[in-house]
C-alpha cells in the first residue's frame, strides 16, 4: 500500500470537527458537564489527566493535561555524563527499557561516529524485538482492562511477560531497568544457554499468541466496542506526527525499521502490517500482527547470530567525550518513533539532550479521535494509543 498522499490538505487546525457544541439547554438536556479524569484514575495508565466536557455521556471537548510525572529527565541528563544518562533512559519508557537504551546508544554513536560490532547489532535486534513483544502483549492486556474485563487478558499477558522479563534479568541483571546497551556495543555477552532458552521461548510464542487471539479477537464485545471507534485519517495522522502502530493502523506504510533500516534490519525479512480504517480495532490487530512479525525477526536473528566481540574495542566507557556537534538518532520503538537529539559542545556532559517521545506526540489527535464518542470509549481509545507516562512527561 502506498503511503497516503501528503498533498491532501489536512483539516485546518482549530477548525471545528466532530459534533458541534450544543447550546440549547432545556428540560431534557442539562448543562454541559466538565469532568476531570485523572491524574488518579484507574484507566488513564498512570497519572495522565483529561479534562473532558460532556453532553450527557458524549464528549464534546477533551483537553489532555500533562506534567504529573515530569521528572526532569532532560535537565538531569544535561548535568551528568553521557554514560550516567543510560540508566535514566530505562525509566523513560519503563515497559521497553531495551529499546530506549538502544535509541540513546544509537544517537550517541551517531554523535561520536562510533561503530558497533555485528554481534552487538544482532543482540540489539533480539532484545528490541523481545521488548516489542512484551510491550504489545501487555498493551493488549491493558486495553482489555479498559474495555472492562477484570484483569483476565492481563494475567495471560503478564504470564508471558514474566518469561521474557526473566530472560532480561538473566542477561542484564534487572527485570525492568536493564541498562544493557553501551556506546559501541552491549554490556554482557549472553551465554549459549541463554540464547537457547530465548530461542525456545520465541519458538513457543506463537502458541501463546494463538491462544490469546482465540480468547480475544473474535469476542463480540471487543468488536462492538472497538470497530469504528476513534477513527484516524491518514493525512491528519501524518500531519500530527503520529508514528508507530497507531499510524500504520491508519494505513500509512512508515516503519523506521524499513525506512531508516538502522542496525541490521535491512538483513531481515519481515512485513509491515497495515490497517485500513484507523480505528481502535485496527490498532488492536496491528499489535497482534506486529508480535507475529517480531517472532519471525527473532527466529532469523537467532539463526544468523554471529560470534565475535560485543563491544567496539575503541569504545571508551569512562571519560567519554564526543566532539562538538549535534545528532538526531531515532528508531522504531514499540510506541512509535523514539528519537534522541544530542548537542555536544565537547565537554563530558551533553549541552542539550532531548527526547522525542512518541507517546506524547501520539496524543496530539486524542481530542479529534474522541469527539462524539462516550467517556467509556475515550478510555478505550486512550488505551489503544499506548502511552507510558514516563515518556509522555519525562
Amino acid at each position, binding site marked *: 500500500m502506498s503511503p497516503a498522499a501528503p498533498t491532501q490538505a489536512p483539516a485546518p487546525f482549530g477548525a471545528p470537527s466532530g459534533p458541534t457544541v450544543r447550546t440549547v439547554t432545556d428540560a431534557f438536556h442539562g448543562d454541559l458537564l466538565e469532568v476531570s479524569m485523572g491524574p488518579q484514575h484507574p484507566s488513564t495508565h498512570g497519572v495522565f489527566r483529561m479534562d473532558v466536557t460532556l453532553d450527557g455521556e458524549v464528549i464534546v471537548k477533551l483537553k489532555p493535561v500533562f506534567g504529573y510525572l515530569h521528572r526532569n529527565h532532560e535537565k538531569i541528563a544535561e548535568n551528568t555524563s553521557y554514560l550516567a*544518562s543510560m540508566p535514566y533512559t530505562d525509566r523513560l519508557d519503563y515497559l521497553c527499557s531495551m529499546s530506549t537504551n538502544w535509541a540513546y546508544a544509537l544517537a550517541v554513536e551517531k554523535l561520536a561516529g562510533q561503530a558497533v560490532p555485528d554481534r552487538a547489532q544482532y543482540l540489539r535486534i533480539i532484545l528490541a524485538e523481545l521488548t516489542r513483544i512484551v510491550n504489545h502483549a501487555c498493551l493488549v492486556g491493558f486495553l482489555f482492562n479498559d474495555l472492562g474485563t477484570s484483569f483476565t487478558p492481563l494475567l495471560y499477558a503478564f504470564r508471558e511477560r514474566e518469561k521474557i522479563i526473566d530472560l532480561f*534479568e*538473566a542477561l542484564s541483571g534487572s527485570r525492568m531497568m536493564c541498562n544493557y546497551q553501551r556506546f559501541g556495543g552491549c554490556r554482557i555477552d549472553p551465554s549459549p544457554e541463554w540464547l537457547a532458552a530465548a530461542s525456545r521461548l520465541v519458538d513457543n510464542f506463537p502458541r501463546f499468541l494463538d491462544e490469546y487471539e*482465540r480468547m480475544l479477537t473474535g469476542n463480540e*464485545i471487543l468488536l462492538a466496542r472497538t470497530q469504528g471507534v476513534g477513527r484516524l485519517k491518514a493525512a491528519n495522522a501524518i500531519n500530527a506526527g503520529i508514528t508507530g502502530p497507531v499510524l500504520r493502523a491508519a494505513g500509512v506504510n512508515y516503519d523506521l525499521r524499513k525506512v531508516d533500516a538502522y542496525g541490521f534490519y535491512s538483513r531481515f525479512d519481515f512485513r509491515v502490517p497495515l490497517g485500513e480504517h484507523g480505528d481502535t480495532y485496527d490498532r488492536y490487530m496491528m499489535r497482534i500482527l506486529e508480535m507475529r512479525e517480531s517472532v519471525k525477526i527473532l527466529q532469523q536473528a537467532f539463526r544468523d547470530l554471529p560470534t565475535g566481540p560485543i563491544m567496539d574495542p575503541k569504545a571508551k*566507557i569512562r571519560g567519554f567525550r564526543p566532539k562538538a556537534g549535534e545528532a538526531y538518532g531515532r528508531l522504531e520503538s514499540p510506541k512509535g518513533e523514539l528519537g534522541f537529539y544530542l548537542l555536544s559542545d565537547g565537554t563530558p556532559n551533553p549541552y542539550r539532550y532531548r527526547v522525542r517521545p512518541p507517546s506524547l506526540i501520539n496524543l496530539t489527535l486524542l481530542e479529534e479521535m474522541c469527539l462524539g464518542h462516550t467517556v467509556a470509549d475515550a478510555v478505550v481509545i486512550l488505551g489503544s494509543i499506548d502511552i507510558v507516562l514516563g515518556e509522555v512527561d519525562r
Partner: protein
Amino acid sequence: MLGSGILKGLAVTAKNFAGSFYDPERMATVQYPEERAPLGEHYRSFPLLVCENAADPLGTLRCVACTICEKECPPQCIYIEKSKDKKPDATGKPQLYPVIFTIDTAVCMGCGICAELCPFDSIKMDKVFEVTATNRFTGLLLERDQLAKSNAYYHSIRPAEAAEVDARLAAERLAAEEKAKAAALAKAAAAAAKAAAAPPTTPPSAA
C-alpha cells in the same frame, strides 16, 4: 452465531483453569516467602564492598577511596571520605582507605555503573532485595561496616564473576611481585655494576 466468540474465549479460560491443576506450564505462582525463584548470575540490587578477610572486614577492604564511583554514580548516592594516612591492604601494600563510605539505598537505583567502573574490583552488586525499613534515614543508609562483605560471600552470590575477578587480581599481584622482584634484581645488578665500575679505591677483594 452471536456470542460464539465469547464462548470460544471462555473455553480458553476454562481450559486454563483446568490446566492450572496439573499442567506445569500453567502453574505460574511462586509461593513467595516459602519458595523463591532463583536469581540469575547477573542479578543486581544494591552495592556492597568486597573485603579479602571476613575476620577483619574493615582492614582488608579492596577499596582505596579513589572516589570514581562517587563521581560516576548517576543518582549521586555514594559518599566517600578519604583517609589521611595509609594502611597496608591485604597484600601489605600501603594504601589509602575510606574513612566514611556511605551508600544511601533510598536513592540508589541499582544501575551497577559503580561496579562496572571500579578499577579495583572493590564495589560489587549484592543480590539482597528484601529490604524494608520504617525510617528512611536510619534504616536505609548503609555505612562502611554494613557494606563490607567478604570475598567468600561474593563468591557465593556470583561464582563465575568472582572467580574471574580473583584470577585477574592474582595475576596482577603475581605480575606486580615479579615486577618488584625484577626491579629489585635490576637494582641489585645495577648496584653491583656500579660497584664494579666504581674507581678501584677499595681493594678488589672487597667486591
